[in-house]
């Protein structure tokens, strides 16, 4: 900033260390700076999800047609959702694992509703970079651990959809859901 020297600088600064011109300068630039920040906020915020995107309702899923060993793929907040009924063998296999040996330690109990351990509801979004893992559809590759397999970078999930191998850091996310009847759930 250009500072102008005055022969009578003393009178401008009013006898103190700060000159009036410096004060005006800093005040004006600060004011404009605050203004710029305030303008930037809506410019940035407009890129966040709009109200219509956020307003996506919760999803209801009918479980009556899903047999043990089967899974369906549906959507929740425009992302895939896996709804699976585990077989007793798959439950046993998941329970066999010591959770402390896992990358993201969780038991099957913690990932399901009390007394309805066979219903495994997870997002179909790989926790690595977001691909849809295979394994919900008939005949798809379920990977080494018999749950889901992400073809993108090779993450393998076990029968409780917990990460066991590959680059994904977390288990498949279990969304908030509740049973509305014995054969129906409400997700979200």
């Amino acid at each position, binding site marked *: 900033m250009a500072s102008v020297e005055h022969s009578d600088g003393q009178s401008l600064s009013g006898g103190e260390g700060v000159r009036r011109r410096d004060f005006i300068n800093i005040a004006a630039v600060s004011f404009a700076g605050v203004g710029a920040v305030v303008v930037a906020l809506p410019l*940035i915020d407009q*890129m*966040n*999800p*709009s109200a219509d*995107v956020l307003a996506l309702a919760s999803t209801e899923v009918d479980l009556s047609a899903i047999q043990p060993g089967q899974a369906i*793929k549906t*959507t929740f*907040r*425009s*992302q*895939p959702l896996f709804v699976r009924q585990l077989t007793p063998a798959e439950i046993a296999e998941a329970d066999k694992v010591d959770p402390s040996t896992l*990358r993201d330690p969780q038991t099957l109990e913690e990932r399901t509703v009390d007394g309805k351990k066979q219903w495994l509801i997870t997002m*179909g979004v790989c*926790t*690595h*970079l*977001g*691909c*849809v*893992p*295979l394994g919900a559809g008939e005949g798809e590759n379920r990977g080494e651990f018999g749950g889901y397999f*992400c*073809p*993108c*970078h*090779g993450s393998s999930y076990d029968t409780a959809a917990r990460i066991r191998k*590959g*680059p*994904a*850091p977390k288990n498949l996310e279990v969304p908030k859901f509740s049973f509305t009847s014995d054969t129906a759930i409400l997700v979200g």
Partner: protein
Amino acid sequence: MSFPWAEHYTPKHPLMQWVDEKLPLPRLVYNAIGAGYPVPRNLNYFWNFGVLAGVALVIQIVTGVIMAMHYGANDLVAFSTVEQTMRDVNAGWLMRYAHANGASFFFIVVYLHIFRGLYFGSYKAPREMVWLLGLVIFLLMMATAFMGYVLPWGQMSYWGAKVITGLFGAIPVVGEPIQTWLLGGFAPGNASLNRFFSLHFLLPFVIAGVIILHIWALHIPGSSNPTGVEVQGPQDTVPFHPYYTAKDGFGVGVFLILFTAVLFFAPNYLGHPDNYIEANPLSTPAHIVPEWYFWPFYAILRAFTVDFFFVPAKLLGVLAMFASILLLFFLPWLDTSPVRSGHYRPMFRKFFWILIIDVLVLGYCGGAPAEEPYVMISQLFAGYYFAHFLIILPLIARFEKPLPLPGSITESVLAKYAKADGETAAVPAE
């Protein structure tokens, strides 16, 4: 800005004199790419690629602006408007194939341009700023090409967008909000497509602006040359026009022959068939691959499969991928050898070619499925990539004994001709 012996712009026609007084634009052009810009007399064909990159950018802008006239940036119609462009719009297929293949050729040319800089040490003082601005252009190109690839809204478009924006989700704490902010939703959708179109339209013009800075910075010291010895006098240079306009013109001809050969005879060779399937958020293609020009970086991303201390593998991969490019910003200070050209650096030259092979292998692995042995090979070769820049280059600079440099550009040129003719060197022009 130029050498003192540069020719001066002296308009003869009164109209040009009048223009020169009001707006000296023709003067600027004359001094930048005309007879007023003296250039080392010994540039080889590797010095064509800068101009070729400019030609590629013009092709992208012309075909892109035309395609934008027929494109609908909405997730419901984007895929079909691109198909309409291909089938119904007059010459639409030509615009689209030229644009899609033009992007590939742009990257081919730019990669050769970068390798030229690496081999001949063009990044060294006094041209560091030219190198840094070039890297900025490279980053902008990658962003532009990534967003452009999303626009046709095919399967690879969608899943590419998901995987790449997912990279940001790996950042601790702020990652997920950033990802949602970038996409305007929880997954790629209409909002993402629209903003990508807007930015894809904008960025090429930003690139054009940075190119102007790149050339401005270049013209302060002037071009380097295959010997890496600086210009010492008028005998070392020739005017850009007509000498290099002619040489570049020949290069443009060769470039266009190769480009049109692919464009007309194998327009889908470099593309991926899955992108002719409309985006489906519920089904991931069996094998997601980015466009070939991203493969080396994609291989580095996927090379990390196990956590290291408390850093998750996912974050490591992302950091390594970004680091592999950001590293290049430090290159002028990592390679401390005072000799520029690889011609006179026997040790450097060997490691340079090893690096090229390393990057090609990484590229191959990046295009291959995420299985063994590709993951292990990616790990080894990604490690070597970093070692090259961080360990090997600084060590070579310390221990290498460079070959004797020619006294001047002219001396090296005359020595070459003397050898070729089997006669003694002519008297150096003075």
